């Protein structure tokens, strides 16, 4: 990442995903905006240190964003559960009764996951990271990252199908 133009491209490609991840993790709009801004600011400052051999720009950005989010969590001493405090009127879905029930079940299932599992879901589903990118962001091996994602998704599926 050696030029402003590339950072701009990365912003257009990943800013929304970074925000969604941070918002899911921090459960606070303002904190999520702060973390998103910090992530891009740090990426700008450290752009000369980016090494393409170590991962994609997206994985590098999420690694920075994750550190900023965890710093924010620690700084604020917030013991916020990683429940997804999301609006009920999410766009793009059929607004029938089944969907409403299904979305409620998903929200409850997400709330029941361990924090690290919810983070994995956020990075995978909102961040759109591949397993390799996840591994880079979480400083894990790719196989380990894949295993953890699989476990989190399995647990989420089971929770969604569990009787209320």
């Amino acid at each position, binding site marked *: 990442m050696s030029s402003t133009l590339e950072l701009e491209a990365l912003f257009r490609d990943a800013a*929304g995903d970074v925000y969604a991840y941070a918002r899911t993790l921090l459960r606070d*709009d303002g904190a999520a905006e702060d973390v998103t801004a910090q992530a891009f600011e740090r990426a700008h400052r450290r752009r000369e240190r980016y090494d393409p051999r170590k991962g994609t720009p997206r994985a590098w950005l999420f690694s920075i964003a994750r550190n900023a989010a*965890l710093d924010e969590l620690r700084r604020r001493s917030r013991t916020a559960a*990683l429940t997804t405090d999301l609006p009920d009127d999410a766009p793009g*879905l059929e607004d029938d009764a089944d969907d409403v029930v299904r979305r409620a079940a998903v929200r409850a299932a*997400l709330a029941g996951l361990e924090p690290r599992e919810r983070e994995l879901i956020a990075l995978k589903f909102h961040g*759109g990271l591949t397993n390799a990118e996840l591994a880079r962001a979480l400083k894990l091996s790719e196989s380990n990252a894949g295993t953890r994602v699989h476990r989190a*998704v*399995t647990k989420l599926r089971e929770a969604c199908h569990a009787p209320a």
Partner: protein
Amino acid sequence: MRQHEPDPAVEAALDAALRGDAVEPDHADLAALVAHVRAQRPAMDPAFAAALEERVASGFAADEPAPQLPARRWRAWRPAVAVAVAASLAAVVVLPTVLGEDDELTVSEAPSAMEEGGGQAGGGGEEPSRAENQADVQSSSDDALPAPDAPGRAVERITGLTLTGPDATVQSIANEAIAVADRVEGFVETSTVDVGEGRATADLTLRVPTDRADDALAALSRLADVRERTQQTTDLTESLDSTQERLEDARATRDGLRNALEEASSAEEVTDLRERLEEARARVRTLGGERAGLRERTSLATIDVEVRGTGGPPATQDDEGGAWTPGDALDDALDVLRVAAGVAIVALAAAVPLAVVLGLAVLTVGLFRRRVRERALDAAA
């Protein structure tokens, strides 16, 4: 396959659903799950997104300059610090070596005063010690002897020379020293060469004409490394003059007694004169020998040569004296490279443990920071 091991088919279906592609009917619920989770995806406020995009586009130019992190400051100074450390190590390693080599080449001073008592023989010590004992001991690294005395003075010169070289060269150095004495028309007074297992020394006493002593010393100094040199000069002019005067007196006495003997008239007188004549003749012989000894001491300089083996390999032809040749330059260059390699090895010996410690410290700090961050995530449960 165990429950928590990734199922490639599920993984493929998940990736396809995340990409928005169609999935197999068996994984329809997974696609639905992706759709429902993503439906709850938080969205950025458009105003915030626009403002941030503007800052990114400007390279955060409008922002206050971010304070430089200590790590960045360290990176800026790192080359200078590395050069300083390398220079310090080089100084620590090279200077003592150079100074140590210089210290080995010493020129010591021999005891100076040589009492030259006159009239030891025959005269019975009637001659007092005189100013001839103003032994002039000088030390110098030059090849030349001390400044010669004024014309007409009779000066004795004794020089001690210590040469060093590899054990295997001691014999050849001794042979060369003998050849030097021959070339200046001198001779070898004593010679001892002791070369064997773990030892190699040679001691020679050369006598060379005083007026060619400088040439001899110059030639000897080129045979090997000169480790020590002592020089001593003694002015024997007055001793020689005194001996000469006493010899002339003894001769006059002898001649007078001889004349008196020829004119003696009685047997008693003849007997007495003959005894006195024998004593006078003996005194003439003694003083003549004394004068000859003094003349030899002043006409022939003494050079005591000691050759010490250093135990190393034999010197090559290139080590010998003479003009500085390309071969010498190559040797010097190799010496420089050897010293540089030595400095590098010592620097590495010091730097590697330091780097390991620093690396471990950095790793520990990094792991600690990471653990602290991860704890924040766990605390959010």
